[in-house]
C-alpha cells in the first residue's frame, strides 16, 4: 500500500490495519501531550483543488500530531488559478520534497493520475475526488461504526469487522464519493448495506454493486437498521429535475422527526444516525435527528483525525505490509529507512 486512493481496492487486512492503528492514534488524543514524533522531518502537502475546510484541517491536525511539516496548497489564488497544470503542480511539489500529497480534487480520478504517472513520487492520499471516492471518510465512518458495534457486542474494537451490521446510506448516491467509498469498504468489512435514494439519484449500473437498493426510507427503517447514514443533498439538484422540490425530497428521503420517532417506536434503541457533514438541516436531516443522542456527527469528526493519522503513518513510516506498528514503536522510531522518495 504505497497510496490510499480508493476503498474499492482496499483489502480487508489493510482496512483492519488502518482501523486498528487509528484506535492507537486515538489514544494519543487522550494524552496530555497530543503529539507523536513519528513523521518528524517528513513533509505532507495538502493539495486542495476544491474548497473543503473540514477535510483540510482534519488532515492538517493529523499530520501535525505526527510531527510532520505541513504545507497547505489551495488552488484558489495560486499558480493553478493562473492555469498551471496538475502535472506542473505535482512536479513542483516533488521538487520541493513532498513525502505525501493529500489531494482533494473536483475531477474524479485526479489522485489516480498523480499515483500512476511519474510526475511525483510521493505517497498519494485521496481526500475526495469528484464523484468517485473519499476513502478516509469511509474509514472514519467505519471506525465510528466499529466502535459502536463492538460496544454493543461487549468486545473491543481491535481486529473487529462489521459482520451483521445493517447500514442504510440515504440520499444523493449518484453524486456522492462518500457513498461509493462506504459501499466498498462496508462490503469488505462484512456489513449489509442498503442504499436509499430517489431513482434519479442512483447511478445506472448500481444493480451490480454489493448492496441492496431501496426507494423507500420508511420500509428500510421498518426492516431494521443499525446505522443510518444521511448524505448531503444539494438544493441545486432540484433545478436539474433530480427531484421536484426540496420539500418533497425532505418528506420522502430525509431523516425527519417522524422517522426519528419511528426508530423509538420500533424499539431500535441502538441505531445511530450518521452524516459526513456539512449538514443541510431541514433538508436531508432534521435538527432533532442531528442533535439527538443517536447522532454520531461529532464523533465522526473526532475519529477523522485518528483515521487520517493512521493513514499518514502507515503510508510514510516504512513497510506497510508488516503488521501495524505500535505507538510505542512510533515513539522510538527515528525512521532511518525512508521510502523511495
Amino acid at each position, binding site marked *: 500500500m504505497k497510496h490510499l486512493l480508493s476503498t474499492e481496492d482496499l483489502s480487508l487486512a489493510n482496512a483492519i490495519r488502518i482501523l486498528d492503528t487509528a484506535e492507537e492514534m486515538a489514544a494519543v488524543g487522550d494524552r496530555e501531550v497530543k503529539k507523536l514524533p513519528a513523521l518528524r522531518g517528513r513533509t505532507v502537502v495538502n493539495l486542495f483543488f476544491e474548497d473543503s475546510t473540514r477535510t483540510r484541517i482534519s488532515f492538517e491536525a493529523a499530520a501535525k500530531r505526527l510531527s510532520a511539516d505541513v504545507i497547505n496548497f489551495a488552488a484558489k489564488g495560486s499558480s493553478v488559478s493562473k492555469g498551471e497544470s496538475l502535472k506542473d503542480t505535482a512536479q513542483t511539489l516533488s521538487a520541493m520534497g513532498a513525502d505525501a500529497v493529500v489531494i482533494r480534487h473536483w475531477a474524479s480520478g485526479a489522485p489516480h493520475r498523480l499515483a*500512476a504517472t511519474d510526475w511525483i513520487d510521493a505517497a498519494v492520499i485521496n481526500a475526495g475526488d469528484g464523484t468517485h471516492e473519499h476513502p478516509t471518510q469511509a474509514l472514519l465512518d467505519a471506525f465510528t461504526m466499529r466502535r459502536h458495534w463492538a460496544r454493543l457486542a461487549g468486545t473491543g474494537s481491535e481486529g473487529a469487522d462489521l459482520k451483521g451490521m445493517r447500514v442504510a446510506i440515504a440520499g444523493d448516491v449518484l453524486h456522492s464519493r462518500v457513498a461509493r467509498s462506504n459501499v466498498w469498504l462496508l462490503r469488505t468489512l462484512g456489513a449489509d448495506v442498503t442504499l436509499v435514494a430517489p431513482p434519479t439519484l442512483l447511478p445506472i449500473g448500481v444493480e451490480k454493486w454489493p448492496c441492496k437498493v431501496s426507494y423507500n426510507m420508511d420500509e428500510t427503517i421498518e426492516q431494521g437498521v443499525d446505522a443510518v447514514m444521511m448524505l448531503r443533498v444539494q438544493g441545486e439538484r432540484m433545478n436539474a429535475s433530480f427531484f421536484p422540490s426540496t420539500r418533497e425530497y425532505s418528506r420522502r428521503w430525509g431523516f425527519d422527526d417522524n422517522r426519528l420517532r419511528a426508530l423509538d417506536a420500533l424499539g431500535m434503541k441502538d441505531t445511530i444516525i450518521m452524516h459526513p457533514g456539512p449538514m443541510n438541516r431541514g433538508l436531508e436531516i432534521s435538527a432533532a435527528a442531528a442533535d439527538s443522542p443517536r447522532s454520531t456527527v461529532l464523533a465522526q469528526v473526532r475519529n477523522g483525525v485518528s483515521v487520517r493519522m493512521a493513514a499518514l503513518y502507515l503510508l510514510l513510516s516504512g513497510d506497510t505490509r508488516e503488521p501495524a506498528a505500535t505507538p510505542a514503536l512510533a515513539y522510538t522510531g527515528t525512521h532511518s529507512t525512508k521510502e523511495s522518495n
Partner: protein
Amino acid sequence: MAGNTGTYLIRGASILGGEPADLLIRDGVIAETGTGLSAEGAIVIDGAGLVALPGMVDVHTHLREPGREDAETVETGTRAAALGGYTAVHAMANSTPVADTAGVVEQVYTLGQKAGWVDVRPVGAVTVGLAGEQLAELGAMADSRARVRMFSDDGICVHDPVLMRRALEYVKAFDGVVAQHAQEPRLTAGAQMNEGEVSAVLGLAGWPAVAEESIIARDVLLAQHVRSRLHVCHVSTAGSVEIIRWAKERGINVTAEVTPHHLLLTDDLVRSYDPVYKVNPPLRTDADVQALRAGLADGTIDVVGTDHAPHPSEHKECEWARAAMGMTGLETALSVVQHTMIETGLFTWADFARVTSAAAAKIGRLEDQGRPLEAGEPANVILVDPAARWTVEPSRMATMGRNSPFKGMELPGKVVATFFKGHPTVLDGALNTPYPHAASVGAA
C-alpha cells in the same frame, strides 16, 4: 490520370487475399495484371507473401490544419495516412477557421495536393461555425475546386431536427451526404464516458447509449422522409447497429461507419483514468464491441473510419475531465481491423477492401479511389504483410499525435508499400517520396 510516375512490377502478390498474380503499374494506372508479366525498365517488387489491396480511403480524419498546427498538419497527417495504407482521406471540418466556406475547403484541398501523400478531400461543415444554427454555403463548397460531397459538423451533433431535415434535403441538389455525429446534447451534458457499470464505480458522468441511438433513429426517419442520403459517423453501440439494420431493411439510404478503437477497446480501460482512452463517442462495453463487429461483418456497417484525432500531449497529460477527446488511428487502423475482423474469421481480405476502400470511396463520391485491382484502373494500391507482428509505439509514428490507445499492444499486419496514383509514397514499410507533381501545385 496518366502521369509520369514510373513503372513498377509487383510479382506474385495475393490479390485481395486470393490467388497470387503480378501487377504492372505504369504511369499512374494498373497497366496489366496476370502471371509471368515482364516489363522493361520496371522496378520489380517481390510480392510473395504479401496481400495486394486497393488504397484505403478514410471517411473520417482530423488533420487539424488550419488552426491547430501544434496538433497536426496536412503534411504530417497525410504522411501518417500513407504509412497506414491510405490513398485518400476526408478531412473533417472542425478546423479553425471552420471549413464552412469554399475558401477554407479549397485551402485544405490545396494543402493536400501540395503535400502529395494522399488525396485530401475536405468535408464541409453543415452549419456556419459548427454552431448548429444556420446552414453553411453547402452549394459553394460543392462547386469549389475541392468538390465537397460530404458535409458534417462532426464533433457536434446537428441536433435541431428542422436544420437536419433541411441539410438532408439541400444536399440532394449536388449528390451530397450529411455525415451525422449522433449525440443528443442534453442527454450528454458534461458526459465523460459510457454510462454503465464502470461509470457508476468511477464517478464519471455517464454518456448513455440512448443519446446516440435516439438521434440515429430520428435521422434515418428524416432521410426516409426527404429521400436523401445519410451517413452515420462512428457508430458505437449495439442499439445503433440494430436501428441501422432496421433502416437498411426498409430501403433507407443510410451508410454507417465504425472506428477501429470501437472494434477493439472497451470502457473497462477507463478504470485507469488515463485520458488516452477518452474519446467521443466513448468506448463502450464488450457487448457493443461484439455487435459492432457483427454489424461490420454483415454489411450493416459499411465502412471503417479512423476518426484520427491527434492532440498535443498537454491535452492528455492532465485530469480525465480536463482532457481532450480523441485518439490517433491512421497508422494502426489496418492492424486493428486485421486483428478484430480477419483473425477472428469474420472477414476475408476482400471484405477488408470493401469496408476500408470501395464503400468509403462510394460514400465520398471519389471516382478514382476504391477501384478493383484490374487493368486500366487508377493505381491506388497497397501491399500488406499479413504475417508481420509489431508493437505499437506512438513516438515512432508520423502523426504528431502521441495519443494512441493501442500503445504497447502487439498487432498483426504491416503496410509494406503504398502506391498513390502510381507513385510509391511508401516502400519497404517506410515513407518514400510524395507524388512527384505535388511540389508544383498551387505555385503561381
